[in-house]
């Protein structure tokens, strides 16, 4: 056990180093002065490059870090408290709520960024609240099933709302903007936006990290968790609201970035263990690395911007298929572990 603990801790340190390297490379990568890496020496000499890094790349990388770690943490927490490895942070009406809020504000108001951000965050939380309240009123199935069903129904309601908004949107100006928002991306992020989500993300993620061992208890069925001295409903609700707040805050500046919250927790569990003490921090670091890499690709590969959500889904779904079909890794791991 001690050696396992040490191995897992070492794994986390290695991941952190990898993250540091990724961030450093992301800072130096871009399309100025030419597509690719800029050398640190060149950066020090070129004032334009410095201002580019400080005012454009850095806030964007910080937003990518928050987005990746926040979505991955929320995803892992959701998967554990619902004891279901297939849920993702937006499934309780949160993602579709955010998208609805954003598209309404694009059509109804002058599309100032802060209005879009506020309205999407607000509608994301409304999505959660409605899902939660509906689930309480269902007369069907267990609590988790009711929540999942309510989430599906509320998401569908918001989707149809988005459909209506798209239908009435100006096809030349508003419709493309809605579509682009829903594909997700960090192209518009500046310092102000990155700062605006920082408090929610830091407080939320810290709280989730504090609960990382207790997540194991909450992944047990209600009766078992209760008999272990927990108040499972109250504690799940606290984590649910916290994880949703982090999700809502991050997607309010990024638009819909899917698959991070679903795939990254799987990778983290595969590399470390299901124990939340390691799976949660690992998930956060891997999520951050993943989104920083995807966002760097999004802004450098082509002349124009590739939507971030497209990249995360494409790479994420590909990885998912590979992970699920690689059974041999899993078996090998157990065999190794079972030998004393």
């Amino acid at each position, binding site marked *: 056990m001690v050696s396992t603990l040490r191995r897992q801790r070492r794994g986390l340190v290695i991941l952190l180093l990898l993250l540091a390297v990724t961030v450093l490379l992301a800072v130096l990568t871009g399309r100025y002065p030419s597509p690719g890496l800029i050398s640190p020496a060149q950066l020090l000499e070129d004032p334009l490059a410095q201002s580019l890094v400080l005012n454009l790349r850095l806030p964007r990388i910080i937003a990518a870090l928050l987005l990746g770690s926040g979505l991955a943490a929320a995803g892992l927490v959701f998967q554990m408290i619902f*004891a279901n490895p297939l849920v993702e942070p937006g499934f309780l009406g949160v993602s579709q709520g955010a998208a609805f809020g954003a598209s309404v504000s694009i059509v109804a108001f002058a599309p100032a960024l802060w209005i879009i951000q506020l309205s999407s965050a607000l509608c994301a939380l409304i999505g959660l609240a409605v899902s939660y309240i509906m689930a309480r009123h269902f007369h069907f199935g267990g609590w988790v099933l009711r929540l999942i069903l309510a989430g599906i129904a509320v998401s569908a309601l918001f989707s149809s709302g988005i459909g209506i908004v798209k239908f009435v949107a100006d096809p030349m100006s508003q419709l493309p903007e809605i579509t682009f928002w829903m594909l997700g991306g960090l192209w518009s992020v500046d310092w102000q936006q990155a700062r605006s989500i920082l408090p929610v993300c830091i407080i939320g993620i810290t709280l989730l990290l504090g609960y990382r061992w*207790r997540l*194991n208890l909450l992944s047990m069925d209600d009766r078992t968790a*209760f008999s*272990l*001295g927990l108040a499972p409903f109250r504690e799940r609700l606290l984590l649910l609201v916290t994880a949703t707040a982090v999700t809502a805050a991050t997607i309010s500046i990024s638009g819909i970035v899917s698959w991070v919250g679903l795939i990254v927790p799987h990778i983290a569990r595969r590399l470390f263990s*299901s*124990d939340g003490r390691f799976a949660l921090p690992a998930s956060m670091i891997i999520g951050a690395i993943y989104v920083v890499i995807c966002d760097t690709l999004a802004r450098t590969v082509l002349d124009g911007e590739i939507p971030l959500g497209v990249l995360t889904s494409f790479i994420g779904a590909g990885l998912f298929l590979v992970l699920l079909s690689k059974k041999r890794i899993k078996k090998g791991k*157990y065999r190794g*572990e079972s030998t004393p």
Partner: protein
Amino acid sequence: MANPLLEIQDISYRYRMNTTPVLQNLSMSIEKGTVNTILGPNGAGKSTLLDICLGWKEPETGRILLNQHDITSFSRRQMGRWMSLVPQDEQVRFEYTVLEYLLLGRAPYLSQLEMPGPEDVDIARRALEKVGLQHLQERPASKLSGGEHQLLMIARALVQEPHILVLDEPTSRLDPGNRQRVVNLLKTLLSHGVTILFTTHDPTLAADISTHALLLKQGKVLHSGPEEKVLTSSNLSQLYGINMEVLRREDKTIVFSTH
């Protein structure tokens, strides 16, 4: 007479309003250091009664006293230290190792943001030795056999270091070897002063290890008291509605059904 450790006073419980109650005006008391069996046909309300003792289900009427205090006055953590549950079955969705799984039993001793430390690991290891699974500590809990998993759930309940150990049909899925292991384990626990409450469909098991028995039929107590007075041929026949025979030899009691 000493005050009972756990006392259930006149409780009734029903799942939905306007349905017949699962438990009706039921009372029972459990003394410290005894083994108490609840016997009854399927649907008699045995598991419900356990849930009420644990505080998981709230009775419609009546109250439950734990060490002379109403259980509603205990905090969740305090309850976790007083009583632990070995459920009939449990689904573990994620792959925890045996040791990670056992450490969950330390929850009542840790605050919300605390993690188990080396002492907790020691306690978990000792519980694993008690059930004889120490060679499996790094194995994924989900890969254990049915018998091993039952022993593991008992070990986790022991990690909680409870005053009262509650078991829901602990031997129903076990082969004779594992069944005997559980029996021996419960006897050892009894000698260490742990109070035990369990349900079973196996009257022979009840006679073998319990000091007290309660026969439950359609939500009501049919008979209760010291095991040798309650587990008789006529009482068990009345309970199950078939002819039951109780054979008592010096240190062994066997219960079987006749036609």
